[in-house]
């Protein structure tokens, strides 16, 4: 694709602040198409950017000024289902939720569930090692992929992983997953499927303060209970969600916890009882238990559309994605509040409390350039605050173009150079998705444009966490 109008759709991914018109877009339909495109790029020394559904939030699919975008969005087929060994081979463009739908007749499902799962692609999940609400108990994408077929940056087709659970040699599959398209383009994925849990129970607990909710989470973990999911919404987030979805969250609560327990009936019953008791012990002001699957779906609809709902209370927002050790949760929330006050901005929090993965949303008016700048500064400060508390710059959205300049706050020059050794081994000429993950003068010297919500976000189809 070369026409100007068509190319415009590929200027950015879900992070709309960074935009660059690609030179060309290849809509690949097979591994061979990708390999051909990559080889041609190699012959002429042109950089290329792999792209899935484009729902990434860190600018991982941002094109370079003269680069080719290789889209795998048209590669959406199920290639094989092996129910006996609980695995399925899919093309990378398949939507995350479609994998579970295809596995449903066999009583199986694919555990990773990013909030954007109705549109985000499995190939993108592999590139970002994305998570979702249920990865506290079940692990991340990397724990659910047996093998990938990859077109390396030199155009070779290689399979990483395979039928055996015991690899021979260093785990290249493990280092490839989460490498954000800088080590190659994935064209086939063998995913691990799990047996659907027999029982699922979900509750929403209201608290006067976010700190009390955080204490309840710590209590749960110290009791040895690993729920399927523990999500938190603060007052601002609850109010936005209720306005947008009427999911039944209490507007007068300072914070709400969504706790889901799954497994077989007896274990679920016991763990749910403990969860309920711990919420009460930590001064929950109300507990609502989903009585039907419809009620449970509504609770999750509220949680998963929280980011999109933010549009109801603010003209624009920046979403951050940092991780902190779970025990520091209450402390970090207080610090974020202080940072927000001194920047004279509001921050809403909706996040995966069980694994300490925060998604602070910095609300601002994008028509006010001074406020926009303050919002960007605050968002970066929050990410780096997570690092200062012994956490990480990203839990699931990736580093991409967005946070590459913050990488030195988390890693030393030697750490980054060691990572680059892997990069150079896979991609000696640096053509695969350049200027991502690692700080570069081009990226860190430029200012980003103003925030514009992704069309799918505006329509409420996808969330950001």
């Amino acid at each position, binding site marked *: 694709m070369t026409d100007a109008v068509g190319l415009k759709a590929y200027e950015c991914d879900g992070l709309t602040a960074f935009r660059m018109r690609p030179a060309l877009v290849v809509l690949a339909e097979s591994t061979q198409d990708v390999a051909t495109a990559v080889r041609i790029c190699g012959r002429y020394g042109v950089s290329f950017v792999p792209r899935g559904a484009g729902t990434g939030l860190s600018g991982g699919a941002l094109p370079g000024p003269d680069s080719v975008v290789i889209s795998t969005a048209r590669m959406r087929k199920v290639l094989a289902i092996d129910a006996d060994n*609980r695995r399925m081979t899919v093309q990378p463009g398949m939507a995350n939720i479609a994998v579970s739908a295809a596995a449903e007749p066999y009583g199986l499902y694919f555990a990773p569930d990013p909030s954007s799962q109705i549109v985000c692609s499995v190939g993108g999940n592999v590139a970002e090692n994305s998570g979702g609400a249920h990865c506290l108990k079940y692990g991340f994408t990397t724990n659910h992929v047996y093998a990938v077929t990859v077109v390396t940056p030199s155009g070779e087709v290689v399979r990483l992983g395979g039928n055996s659970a*015991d690899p021979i040699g*260093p*785990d290249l599959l493990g280092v490839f997953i989460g490498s954000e398209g800088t080590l190659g383009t994935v064209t086939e994925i063998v995913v691990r499927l799990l047996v659907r849990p027999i029982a699922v129970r979900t509750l929403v607990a209201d608290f006067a303060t976010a700190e009390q909710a955080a204490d309840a989470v710590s209590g749960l973990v110290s009791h040895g209970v690993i729920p399927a999911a523990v999500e938190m919404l603060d007052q601002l987030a609850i109010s936005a969600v209720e306005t947008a979805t009427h999911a039944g969250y209490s507007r007068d609560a300072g914070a709400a916890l969504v706790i889901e327990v799954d497994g*077989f009936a*007896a274990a679920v019953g016991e763990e749910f009882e403990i969860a309920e008791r711990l919420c009460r012990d930590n001064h929950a002001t109300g507990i609502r238990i989903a009585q039907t699957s419809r009620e449970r779906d509504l609770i999750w609809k509220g949680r998963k559309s929280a980011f999109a709902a933010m549009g109801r209370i603010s003209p624009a927002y920046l979403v951050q994605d940092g991780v902190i050790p779970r025990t520091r949760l209450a402390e970090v929330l207080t610090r974020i509040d202080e940072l927000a006050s001194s920047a004279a901005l509001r921050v809403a929090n909706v996040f995966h409390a069980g694994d300490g993965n925060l998604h602070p949303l910095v609300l601002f008016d994008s028509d006010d350039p001074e406020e926009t700048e303050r919002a960007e500064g605050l968002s970066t400060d929050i990410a780096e605050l997570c690092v200062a508390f*012994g956490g990480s710059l990203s839990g699931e959205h990736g580093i991409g173009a967005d946070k590459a300049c913050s990488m030195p706050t988390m890693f030393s020059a030697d*750490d980054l150079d060691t990572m680059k050794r892997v990069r150079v081994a896979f991609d000696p000429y640096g053509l695969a998705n350049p200027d991502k993950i690692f700080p570069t003068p081009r990226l860190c010297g430029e200012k980003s444009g103003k925030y514009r919500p992704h069309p799918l976000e505006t329509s409420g189809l996808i969330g950001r966490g």
Partner: protein
Amino acid sequence: MTVGPVAVIDDQQRPADVEAAAALMRDSAAERASVLISGAGSKLGWGGRVVAPDLKINTGRLDRLIDYRPGDMTVAVQAGMSLAVLQPILAEHGQWLAIDPPTETAGATIGGLLVSGDAGPCRLRHGTLRDLAIGCTLVLADGTIARAGGHVIKNVAGYDLTKLMYGSLGTLALVGEVVLRLSPLPAASRTISCALRPTGATRATAAVIGSGVEPSAVEWHGTPSHAGTLLVRLDGTGRTIESATAHVVAALREVGVDDLDIVSGSPSPDRGGAVLAEGRPGPSTVRIGVLPDQFPLISQTLEGLAARHELTAFLISSTGLGLHTVRLSGPIAGQAALIDELGTAVQRLDGTVALRDRDAELDRVRGTSAPMPQPPQTAALQRAVKDRFDPDHRLAPGRFTPWF
């Protein structure tokens, strides 16, 4: 930077901290010396033998607990700490590192377990250190110290170098420190035992996993194609374990498994450890990885090969994972021939075969320690990574030959 002391015992250098290890590595680089890194030394033959290294670095004194955070369920340790020392410390807080490798009793270290990928029966539910190690500190061949990951379980900042170390067997870097994700220690366990042939065991395993109760381990041991013992381990709380057991027993009865024994308490289904210990020296231990439902095919193949070469084969299989440890005994020439034929057969199934413990004579007869006729498909990429981490190929020369 102060460099900690380095003790020399049995011609092995024993650094006490990462800086001292880095100093040793820098010196070895200056002298272009070949280096063998070892922990407890329980897996020195895995992945090929390292012949006459100029320098032996032992991580035995890198055995400190660095930072234990029970509330976060993470612990950072020096890589030479043994699992057997770590588990009781964690148990005081009702936690454990959820692996139960057979080499635990031989003093297996955390670093060694990471780079070898060794786990145990509970791997079915909890995975290996690939899944449980969330950060590490490395010393590269040139003495560079690099950190990756951290103390948080969810982390996608930068490349996951910890995973790159998984399976690397000391060929890419020295692992100096490891951060681990912990699990709650189960309060109660039951093991269900039944006598089954491989075909029945495969069906029973599928039924257990499909029951919706997550078993911690499903292990079979016996001789190929004969009735052996299938052990199903369930973990839970005092209140839930009975119900879980009843549920799994019902699932087993449904596929025609009647003769069941339920063992109270928590006997480890880990026959692997005992068998490996019994097996030394003399017999060879071969590790096979295939799809779980290929167990009957593998046992049949093994039975045929063992009969043809007049050998006895004993199998310990993680049937839920498709991983099989085979102990071979009998004439060395027969073992060598069987391994070659097995390698070809398993490679055709897109599986893997690795040689573990064996008599040195076996490698001499075969002329190689690589059990598969073809290098893995990723050999070129593996070599490219090796070239960047260890350009002079000084670390563990001999491992992963011929492609390293």
